[in-house]
């Protein structure tokens, strides 16, 4: 793991921090922060088992769905969608207080959960297209980020295993990269399993190239937006009803069932 201070000086990316104030400063300065050691070993193992079980099931059943920004002919990388409906343990990530506090600081509250999906790189797996997550907002963009992505490292994120690559500071350009900028120099965001990486929605990033011959690298991406945007996953169509039934108050807000102004039913919030 190349996470020592000297390396950060070279790459211009932030050092891992457990201090929320520093994490927010990092998001402002770099467009991202790294928060290590959030999931204890037993919790991490529980989440990891649930994720790889769902991934295996999808692969065995031919349920895998490609993502437009991925390498098209890649049979080793894998996406797993709508994790909330696969195992209730993923709700713990969505509303984890350390992550959610940062989300609230970056985009305010109420916020919506656009999606929570996994991106598992496999041996030899190719890169994604460089992009900013708020790509769906027509430019010119508002002054503030419209979303935030919390990337949970379920395996160690290393350069070799295809850690997410970012262009630190690119959020300040406040626009998507052009086609010519797709090859802009990027750095691998390395972090041990159990960490999370927060990327505000304007920072340019992509999945890295997995250069190993035998290792997979799972990341779970919880994507939050300001409440005016349509969610990426249509929860009202696809969510396991038990998740809604037992949802906490913040989770009802994030899913869009407890709402103000938009997403109403007969002029009232549906929950």
């Amino acid at each position, binding site marked *: 793991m190349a996470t020592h201070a000297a390396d950060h000086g070279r790459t211009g990316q932030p050092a891992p921090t457990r201090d929320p104030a520093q994490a927010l400063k990092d998001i402002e300065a770099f467009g991202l922060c790294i928060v290590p050691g959030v999931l204890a070993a037993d919790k991490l193992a529980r989440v990891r088992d649930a994720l790889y079980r769902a991934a295996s099931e999808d692969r065995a059943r031919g349920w895998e769905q490609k993502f437009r920004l991925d390498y098209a002919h890649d049979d080793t990388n894998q996406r797993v969608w709508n994790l909330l409906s696969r195992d209730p343990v993923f709700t713990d990530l969505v509303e984890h207080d350390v992550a959610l506090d940062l989300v609230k600081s970056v985009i305010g509250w109420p916020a919506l959960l656009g999606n929570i999906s996994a991106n598992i790189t496999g041996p030899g797996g190719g890169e994604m297209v460089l992009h900013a997550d708020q790509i769906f907002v027509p430019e010119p963009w508002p002054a503030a980020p419209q979303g935030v992505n919390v990337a949970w490292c379920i395996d160690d994120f290393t350069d070799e295993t295809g850690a997410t690559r970012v262009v630190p500071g690119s959020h300040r350009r406040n626009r998507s990269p052009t086609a010519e900028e797709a090859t802009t*120099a990027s750095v*691998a965001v390395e972090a041990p399993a159990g960490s999370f990486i927060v990327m505000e929605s304007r920072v340019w990033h992509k999945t*890295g190239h997995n250069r190993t011959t035998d290792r997979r690298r799972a990341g779970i991406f919880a994507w939050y937006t300001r*409440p005016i*945007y*349509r969610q990426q996953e249509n929860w009202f*169509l696809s969510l396991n009803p038990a998740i809604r039934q037992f949802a906490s108050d913040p989770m009802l807000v994030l899913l869009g069932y407890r709402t103000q102004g938009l*997403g109403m039913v*007969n002029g009232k919030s549906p929950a």
Partner: protein
Amino acid sequence: MDLEAKKHQLLEEGCCVVPGILTRAETDDVRQRLWRAAEESERRGVPTRRIGIDPNEHNVRVFHLLELDAVFRALIQNPVAIDFVTALLGPDFLISNFTANIALPGSRSMKLHSDQGIVVPEPWFHPWSINVIWCLDDIDAENGATRYIPGSHRIRWQSEVPENAAERTVPFEAPAGSIAVMDGRVWHTSGANVSPSRERALLFGYYSRSFIRPQQNWNACLSDTTVAGLSAQMRAWLGLDARANVKLAEPLRILDTAASTANP
């Protein structure tokens, strides 16, 4: 009717009135069905007055028009209405809401706003929403015509809103059976109904770009029976399925080659 000229007016002034979409008999029928829908709404426990957005009880608001009567499901997808929506927003839109606001004598004005500006942060360079307003009565300044500032769809930043904005508004006048079409960026307010006895029934068909969250949660509020009767096109426009919020990513083609910029 020269619809192209009306579309030009919509793009230039932010608003246009297209008369004669409904005949007098059709308008009377829709108005009757609207009052029945209001009663049905109350019967189902969804109040229609004093719901918190009007200054007093003289406005009747009916929310679930699409669920309550097939005539409203027809109006929201009326070809002329869709033509204007597409002219402004392009084909990538969702039906955000369809509600009624009947202003009875004594109803008062709302605060000046743009529908887009109260929801999405500045700057407002492009139209992200549109109102198609069905006029079920003759509408004029006396019975509470919507007042708007012509050309105000060009306001891109809050700082460009003129200080005397409220004084610059003009009422739109339209005979019953018209639609008034308004860019979501136009600054406007509901007018006060100062007439002694005239009602002013308007239906607001609101459409927004597909990345914007619709005002109404159609998945949660339409009954199975209603959904079963919808065309594939209506399901798409209501966002009932796994669709929308994807158009801007489409120019990004799926990568044909396995790239690597990782540092060895």
